[in-house]
């Protein structure tokens, strides 16, 4: 187990180093998220729908779509010069490769959220100060599920003829429970309800995370056999 985690950390560090030096996916995902916030604001009549009613849905829809940008990159960087073969030949287990990729994606998605959520609060005039703790918990739970499923499908989609076109089609149905649970929980918090009322949604997110982290980690080795 310690071997797997150490191997995973090495892989995650490698991916984050690539991303940190190029910043290409991070900047595009971030700008995409900020643009999304602006576009969604104008997609509704602000005199009919209050910005605070709109915000939870906007936040989590944008979160999943901008997440896809980073997830696609996760395995497409390994296609150049068949880098994935080097990774598979290295003395780390397949599960460690998957977890490493997933951890790098989690940090990536978390970094986008860390800027997009305050930006949402600013643009949509939300009082986030008193719900920051529970909101961060929702964000982490949602990100884990998204990244587990998304990393596996990214590994699969990159080897198909459709490549990046296939990823949203495979992944979005799996993101639906995450979006529903996270936006319902967020809207409970923003409308000043006690945290306990969002409890069922948080449990749903937690169950999703446990099931799909385990299932996707076990499934990944089947996608890289030769």
């Amino acid at each position, binding site marked *: 187990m310690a071997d797997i985690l150490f191997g995973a950390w090495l892989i995650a560090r490698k991916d984050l180093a690539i991303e940190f030096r190029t910043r290409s996916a991070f900047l595009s995902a971030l700008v995409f998220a900020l643009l999304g916030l602006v576009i969604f604001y104008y997609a509704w009549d602000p005199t009919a729908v209050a910005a605070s009613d709109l915000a939870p849905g906007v936040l989590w829809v944008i979160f999943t779509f901008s997440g896809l940008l980073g997830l696609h990159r996760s395995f497409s960087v390994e296609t150049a010069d068949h880098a994935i073969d080097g990774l598979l030949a290295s003395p780390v287990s397949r599960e460690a490769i998957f977890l490493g990729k997933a951890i790098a994606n989690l940090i990536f998605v978390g970094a986008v959220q860390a800027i997009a959520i305050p930006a949402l609060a600013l643009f949509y005039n939300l009082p986030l100060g008193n719900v920051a703790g529970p909101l961060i918990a929702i964000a982490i739970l949602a990100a884990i599920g998204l990244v587990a499923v998304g990393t596996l499908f990214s590994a*699969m989609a990159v080897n*198909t003829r459709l490549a990046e076109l*296939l990823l949203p089609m495979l992944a979005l149905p799996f993101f*639906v429970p995450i979006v529903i649970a996270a936006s*319902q929980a967020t809207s409970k918090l923003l409308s000043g309800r006690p945290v306990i009322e969002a409890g069922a949604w948080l449990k*749903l997110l937690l169950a999703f995370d446990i099931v799909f982290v385990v299932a996707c980690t076990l*499934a990944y080795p089947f*996608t890289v056999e030769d």
Partner: protein
Amino acid sequence: MKISWLPAVAGLAVIGAVIRAAFFTPLEAKQGAAQKIFYIHVPAAWVAFLAFGLVAIASGVFLWLRDPRLDRFAESSAEVGVVFTTVVLITGPLWAKPIWGTYWAWWDVRLVSTLFLWFIYVSYIVLRGAIDSPEMRARYSAVLGILGALLIPFIHLSVYLFATMHPMPIVGKPSAPSLPNEMLLTLFLSLISFTLLYFSFVRSRYHYAVERDTLIEAANQHA
């Protein structure tokens, strides 16, 4: 010419069940003729869930035994399942419009779960089409076949929780009426005939897959 009995029996059984449903089963007191769609809708839904359940099982066993026959079965069952799910998604709204007053209801758990079943298995078919290597195609689609089955309970649960915060449909939503015997018999016959039809379709589709793979193999050996 070899006469294939399964499609013939299945076809006749479906025609018989539909005739019985249309002419020899009493009208439902409140819903009238609209309720007749029940004898197509419910068996199609049963077959859809059977088809995708079998895809998930065949996928799991495939990853264990690596028998290409299981992959061909999963491929066939998924395609037939999508056809029956489409029937469910068309007949459901047709019934719902006169009875609920709306074609679609986002708060109904079964509606939304069926829609996502359809989405997942359409992307399953697209995934299969996007991979050239038969061996890789089988592994990838098996992974999706299993994950898809894991997803459905989560969709179900999240829509269920979502629905409890929304108004329930006002227009006569039937709460699982206990059926009179004549209607129950018709439903039972429809279920059997649709199940036969499922196996007949899957068998034809499976034979097609076998012949296609044999041809591809022969072409590869020739080249």
